[in-house]
């Protein structure tokens, strides 16, 4: 066994291990939490990047935990889409962790200067817990995309969910706790439903390894069980993905959580639901995908169209910045779902590109919102008038990211939408293509309204006067990195799309 084969498991286990270490070390050194978390995530990132060429050459990477052969042991099975997701997850987690440092613990200026801070400063004792949970969350997402065992996938899924409830509620005040409970009320039944689906599959196949299940259900006809278990799994993942109409937990959880956590929720965690759908559809149900289950997938594309329109209308109606951004996520999940629901290689490329592009742009949105909230305390869009006079760089990053959310070329958002339209046209769904374009116009309405307020309107009387100024560099740099990433992904899409096309083709070819 060569060294690189261990990379995957190290990428997952390192953050888990450090997550345990952090609270212990914090007994003596409270300030070590963030550097340790950053180190662990950097290692995961480097290992994930190193895996890309290996996986690309071999097609997939299989690793048997404890050397137990599958289907008895747990298999880590990373295909091309999986490894790209690992790179995305580890990079965004790292960037947001850096942002968290000054968001949770702002530096107070020296004596004599007035300083106003309105944000969610976290007491020093809580910070190690935050980073610890954060690392478990990162590890569970990495494990979720890497595993080849469906029960193991469920375990990571639950782990991810539990960490996210805790992180949403971590400010410890009324509203975040209520949002977290609402989130739990939706997500716990969803997890049970996923478990039910896995149980159904296990009851007829006697296996938990995805590849093994796929082989067994392809051989013989199980009829209704296949359809029922598939629907159950899809619904379970759809709650996590906040697919309309199962999105009701999302606006509250996203807007009440600390902003770095909102960025992770919107940028990565909801995408895990979609990834789960894609994974079970192609890796488990591949044989039935084009026949018995085609109508379900097809129906999902119309659900996606409804999500796009609904999310956009709700986003336009909001007066609170973070809730607006959250509804924008509902809308963009619709785009990604559309790429999945059209069941076409090109559309899947579009969906996958949108996963990446939206992750960058939306995380940037939430980080900008976080910077604005922590410097000024303003939550309402109306209060953002004239924000660019005090915080020009943050507002500029927001403007750049909104180009990507709207889908103005040459940004990542445009590329994703282009492939989605291409996919819908080539499968003959002109109406869905039109929805994609119409969604862009509506996105322009809610994004550019905020940009317009920031840059072109004078502040209301007295507002923004006591605001100290721009966010610190350690918050600005992650924000700008994400915004620039969304732009760069649009400009250099021709380098990345072949990878994604390869990934999509290898998924579709499994059946």
């Amino acid at each position: 066994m060569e060294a690189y084969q261990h990379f995957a498991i190290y990428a997952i286990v390192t953050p888990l291990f450090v997550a345990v270490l952090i609270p212990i070390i914090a007994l003596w050194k409270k300030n070590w939490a963030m550097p340790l978390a950053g180190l662990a995530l950097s290692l995961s990132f480097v290992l994930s990047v190193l895996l890309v060429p290996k996986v690309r050459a071999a097609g997939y990477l299989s690793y048997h935990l404890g050397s137990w052969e599958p289907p008895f042991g747990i298999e880590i099975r990373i295909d091309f889409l999986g490894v790209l997701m690992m790179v995305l997850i580890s990079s965004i987690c790292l960037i947001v962790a850096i942002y968290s440092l000054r968001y949770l613990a702002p530096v107070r200026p020296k004596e004599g200067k007035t300083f106003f801070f309105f944000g969610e400063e976290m007491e020093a004792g809580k910070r190690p817990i935050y980073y610890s949970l954060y690392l478990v969350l990162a590890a569970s997402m990495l494990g979720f995309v890497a595993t080849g065992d469906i029960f193991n996938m469920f375990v990571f899924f639950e782990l991810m969910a539990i960490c996210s409830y805790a992180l949403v509620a971590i400010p410890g005040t009324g509203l975040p706790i209520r949002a977290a409970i609402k989130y739990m009320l939706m997500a716990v039944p969803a997890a049970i439903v996923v478990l039910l689906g896995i149980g159904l599959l296990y009851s007829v196949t006697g296996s938990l390894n995805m590849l093994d299940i796929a082989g067994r259900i392809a051989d013989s006809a199980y009829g209704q069980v296949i359809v029922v278990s598939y629907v159950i799994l899809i619904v379970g993942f759809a709650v996590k993905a906040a697919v309309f109409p199962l999105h009701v937990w999302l606006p509250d959880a996203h807007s009440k959580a600390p902003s770095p956590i909102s960025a992770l929720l919107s940028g990565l965690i909801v995408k895990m639901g979609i990834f789960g759908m894609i994974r079970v559809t192609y890796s488990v149900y591949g044989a039935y995908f084009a026949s018995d289950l085609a109508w379900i997938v097809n129906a999902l594309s119309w659900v996606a169209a409804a999500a796009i329109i609904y999310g956009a209308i709700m986003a336009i109606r909001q007066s609170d910045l973070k809730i607006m951004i959250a509804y924008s996520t509902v809308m963009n999940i619709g785009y990604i779902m559309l790429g999945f629901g059209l069941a076409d290689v090109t559309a899947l490329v579009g969906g996958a590109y949108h996963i990446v592009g939206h992750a960058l742009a939306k995380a940037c949105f939430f980080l900008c919102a976080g910077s604005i909230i922590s410097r000024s305390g303003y939550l309402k869009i109306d209060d953002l008038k004239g924000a660019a006079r005090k915080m020009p760089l943050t507002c500029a990053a927001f403007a750049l990211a909104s180009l990507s959310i709207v889908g103005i070329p040459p940004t990542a958002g445009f590329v994703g939408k282009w492939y989605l339209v291409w996919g819908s046209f080539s499968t003959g769904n002109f109406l869905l293509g039109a929805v994609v374009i119409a969604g862009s116009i509506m996105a322009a309405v809610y994004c550019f309204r905020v940009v317009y307020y920031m840059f072109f309107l004078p502040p209301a009387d007295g507002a923004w006067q006591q605001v100290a100024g721009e966010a610190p560099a350690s918050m600005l740099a992650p924000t700008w990195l994400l915004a620039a990433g969304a732009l760069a992904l649009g400009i250099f899409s021709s380098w990345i799309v072949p990878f994604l096309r390869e990934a999509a083709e290898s998924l579709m070819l499994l059946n």
Partner: protein
Amino acid sequence: MNAEIGCMRPLMAILLPGVSLLAILLLPGKHQTLKRAVHIAGSLGAFGVVLSMLPGILDGNVYGMELIPIVELISIHLTVDALGFYFGLVLTFLWVLATVYSSGYIKHKDERFYGFMALCNSFLLGCAFSQNIFTYFVFYELMTLASFPLIIHEETDAARRAGIKYLKYAIPAGAVILFAILLHFFRGGGDLSLVSMGTLSLDAASRTLLTVVFLAYFGGFGVKAAIVPLEGWVPDAHPAAPAPASALLSGVILKAGAFGIIRVVVNVFGLDLFKELNLWIPMIVLASITIILGSVRALAQDNLKRRLAYSSVGQVSYILLGIALMSPLGVLGGIMHLAHHALMKGCLFFCSGIILKKTGKKNVSEMAGVGYSLPITMICFSICALAMMGTPLTVGFISKWLLGSGAVQADKPALIIVLLISALLSAFYYLPIIYTAFFRRPQEDSESQTFQFKGETSPAMLWPAVVLAVLVIVVGVWVTVPAFPHSLASMVVRVLFT
């Protein structure tokens, strides 16, 4: 068509204004003069680089380079052919004058204005040098967004409303163009390039589909080109914007829409298919209605810039009318009018800005005696106003003459009536301005019956207007000098009709 010669110059021309933008951003706030100088130098540099391609273009060369594939099969690709060069030359030239002018005009938040002006310059040049309609769309959309801050620069409520209205028109229009491109690409054969004379054909797609594609392109670009049901933003945006921005709006930004339609007709559909599908009928009808209606509505305006804006609505449709005639002289006239109108209207807006700055007067009815306090400005204004009416020895006459001959050549002599009515109406709304300025006594003081040059104290604003007014006559008299519109437009027409 000759093969494309690989060349960095198109890219350089596009990047040069960006360099001045960087300088504006990075130089510390106290270097105001230096910033102005860099801003002017950037636009001058772009103009110089474009001009350096002139000999090659006149020899029939095509310069270009592929930048980067943005999605599969489509790349951002720059090409300078005769038509693109022509538009690029016009816009960079007007931009140089507008940057000089704005250094005298803009006193408030000038860095923001200069920055977005430089951005718009780059993006518009990108439009002019697009090798495919997709590249055109990318730059066109970016230009739309970058021109918004220019319109609302004064930050009054009226300016903000006008700016929002502009976006309300322009963003859906962008989506419609995107829809057309998508249909064109995925259902119309997949060739988006603008280098041959027609890439679509009836072999690849049905008549209905091609008609829908054309109407979507026409409607989408028609918003910028101010075709009549879609012109609503024009009369609001022009008076609200500062004078240099209005001059650029009328002079070249509206033309970007018209230029898009020219590209679609000439390079995407080709004149044969355009004729075969009878697409010229809606275009001629709408262009004629716009010409008449624009002039009629201009009559009723008292606000000078609003009157000029309605005049632009009508004048831009001259270009479309010329193209839709599909006769050599008509197309020649239409393409030449693009530059001619930029010269005339640029000067008129520059003059209106000087009047506003020096006397504070916005409305025509208040302008009694302005000709005496601002004689040079008003003489320039009068030259261009007369040119707009089609007075011989000016560029306006050349356009009208060619369009009229084109109408006869295309066997549609009835359209001459449209041109004549428009000329008559423009006499009705331009002559009163000249009359009021020179021949009506201001009520409050009677001493100003002699020319007073002491009002004309701002050379940065005056010279651009004078240069344009002189050019209106020079280009109108020495029509066929190389680099003047005729030489380039006739190259395009030669390729089209051989």
